[in-house]
């Protein structure tokens, strides 16, 4: 079992924090998890040695996939959902996500009292996006200054055992790496006169999460939250890990044993939320020739990598094997009936 719920107190000199902290602690790791009890209520714990040597069959057309992307800028803005009609038609392979980009741009005509132009470091005030390019495959929610922005991404899979025999089912995936970050509001100064110095009493909290559910019950989940509040953080924020490791980790989860014709549902959900109250910005004069100021405001983001469908099974795959050897003596908590049942 992986070490979940480790807590990372992130301090540092970098203005960009979240992802740096995660990578500095990252340990690539393969995880194999028996989740048969969660999935089926039976004490079937497969031997992973038998899984490793078994012939694996891709789900193929026995799996039906649906995908939906969604985003919302600060209310009263409503959620935008793609596809709008849900559920839409299914596909028989893991789908690329519907692309989404909701943006409120930063003002470009704001001036000071003496008509100097104010140029924001970041071009947007709010952004909710699902991006799928060669350079960036992610879902994100971001707020410069103040706002309440969210994104969501859902994959819904219906799996059927279309063989004539009972089979064991597994899901393998690379845990989506978090993309949280915090850029503090700052101005250039300090002892050297040339270093960023945080300004203001800005606040904000961001969280990105991933969940995997089998027949409606969570069997794997991870989250990371990033907090910029006086009580728990300096200007660069403090991060908290929840659930399973997801820095550079791959998982194989035993879903359960299904008879011929049986079906199960699998849901893979990512969510990103940012709430920020950060009106204070720093700014620096660019000189009389430019007659402009660069404005440095807090930018708080939550996000996750999303599966690269061109990676095939490395990103997300459902596979099955013939019924494998089980280890009923595997310690998963002793005698099952001793403390189960009742009202």
């Amino acid at each position, binding site marked *: 079992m992986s070490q979940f719920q480790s807590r990372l107190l992130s301090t540092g000199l970098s203005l960009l924090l979240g992802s740096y902290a995660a990578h500095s602690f990252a340990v690539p790791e393969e995880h194999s998890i028996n989740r048969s009890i969660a999935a089926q209520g039976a004490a079937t714990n497969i031997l992973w040695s038998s899984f490793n040597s078994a012939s694996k069959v891709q789900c193929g057309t026995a799996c039906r996939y649906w995908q939906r992307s969604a985003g919302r800028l600060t209310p009263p803005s409503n959620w935008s959902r793609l596809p709008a009609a849900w559920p839409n038609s299914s596909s028989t392979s893991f789908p690329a996500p519907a692309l989404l980009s909701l943006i409120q741009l930063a003002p470009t005509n704001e001036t000071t009292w003496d008509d100097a132009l104010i140029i924001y470091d970041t071009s947007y005030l709010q952004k909710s996006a699902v991006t799928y390019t060669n350079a960036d495959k992610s879902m994100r929610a971001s707020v410069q200054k103040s706002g309440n922005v969210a994104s969501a991404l859902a994959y819904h899979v219906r799996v059927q055992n279309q063989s004539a025999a009972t089979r064991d089912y597994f899901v393998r995936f690379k845990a989506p790496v978090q993309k949280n970050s915090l850029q503090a509001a700052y101005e250039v100064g300090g002892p050297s006169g040339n270093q960023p110095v945080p300004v203001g009493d800005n606040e904000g909290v961001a969280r990105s999460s991933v969940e995997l559910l089998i027949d*409606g019950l969570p069997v794997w989940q991870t989250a990371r939250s990033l907090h910029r509040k006086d009580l728990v953080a300096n200007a660069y924020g403090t991060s908290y890990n929840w659930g399973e490791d997801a820095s550079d980790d791959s998982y194989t989860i035993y879903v359960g044993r299904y008879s011929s014709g049986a079906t199960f549902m699998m849901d893979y959900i990512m969510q990103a939320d940012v709430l920020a109250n950060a009106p204070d910005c720093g700014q620096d004069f660019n000189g009389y020739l430019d007659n402009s100021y660069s404005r440095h405001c807090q930018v708080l983001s939550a996000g996750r990598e999303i599966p690269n469908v061109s990676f095939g099974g490395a990103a997300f795959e459902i596979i099955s094997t013939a019924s494998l050897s089980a280890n009923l003596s595997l310690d998963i908590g002793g005698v099952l009936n001793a403390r189960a049942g009742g*009202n």
Partner: protein
Amino acid sequence: MKRLLLLILSIATHASIFAAQVADDFVPVDQYSLSIITPLDSLSYKTAVHYAIANDHTNVKFRERGDRGQSNEVLAKYDVLIDNLAHDPNQATPAADIQQLMPIDFTKAENTAQGWARMGTAAIPALTIALNGETRGHASASWRTTYTVTGSGSRNVSLKFRIPETVMDGRFEQSAKGAYQGRAKVQLLVNGYPVWSSEAMRIAPATPNAMSEYMFETFGSAWAFDKNTEKASAKWVTASMGTYSAGQSLDVVLVYFVEASIGRECEYVADMYACMGMTVSFKRDNTATLPSFSSSPTLQIAIP
């Protein structure tokens, strides 16, 4: 008399339309009286519970329990990670009756974790992860069903469901102060898409210096936790599931989830253990009313 009633109804309807009208737009009219209510127990539904607790300091480092049931079948699971079971007040409890179960006396047993998971007959869960010292755990419960949208034409569909009293109770220990955190989440899925969710976190500095050094944060729909009582009151929620055509079948799942962890071992001080504590719980709720779906016509009236 009948004509009089019709006249009053007509005036009332028009009054509400005019009061809400927006120029150059359509005005949705909420005709609650036309809603078709479908209680969950009139459908075929399945329930499930699960918990996992972990402790790196005991011989048994990890335990989990799960179960699945049909409709109003009661599911209940309990277990503990503890060095000496003699200190488990529930050792003699044959069934996981969450009403009877007692918390561990943390002064006598270090680094302990208890997990309870229960789904009652009204599809309202009770979940608890209770930790003392360096341990962690999570628990979940859910129900799922296939709901076929009732009525005719385009329908606004919603679900009314219960969130039990929710506790995120921490215990600060000066002699063993360290990190502790907890969270609770409720999420409504329609064909795997989260149409409604609410999540609350309790976080503290890595090394808090006082009991009061913690805060609650909420994502999604509002969930008001009281910092004095360290809990949120039970409530009914009516969550929109969206607009669908009558006759459409929807896979619906409602998930309840709790999680907690403590990052500091207990310390043995003055002949007893001193431990940070964290309990996150959906309390047992004996409400007999089941969740229910509502399907209402999507009426729109063109403004002349």
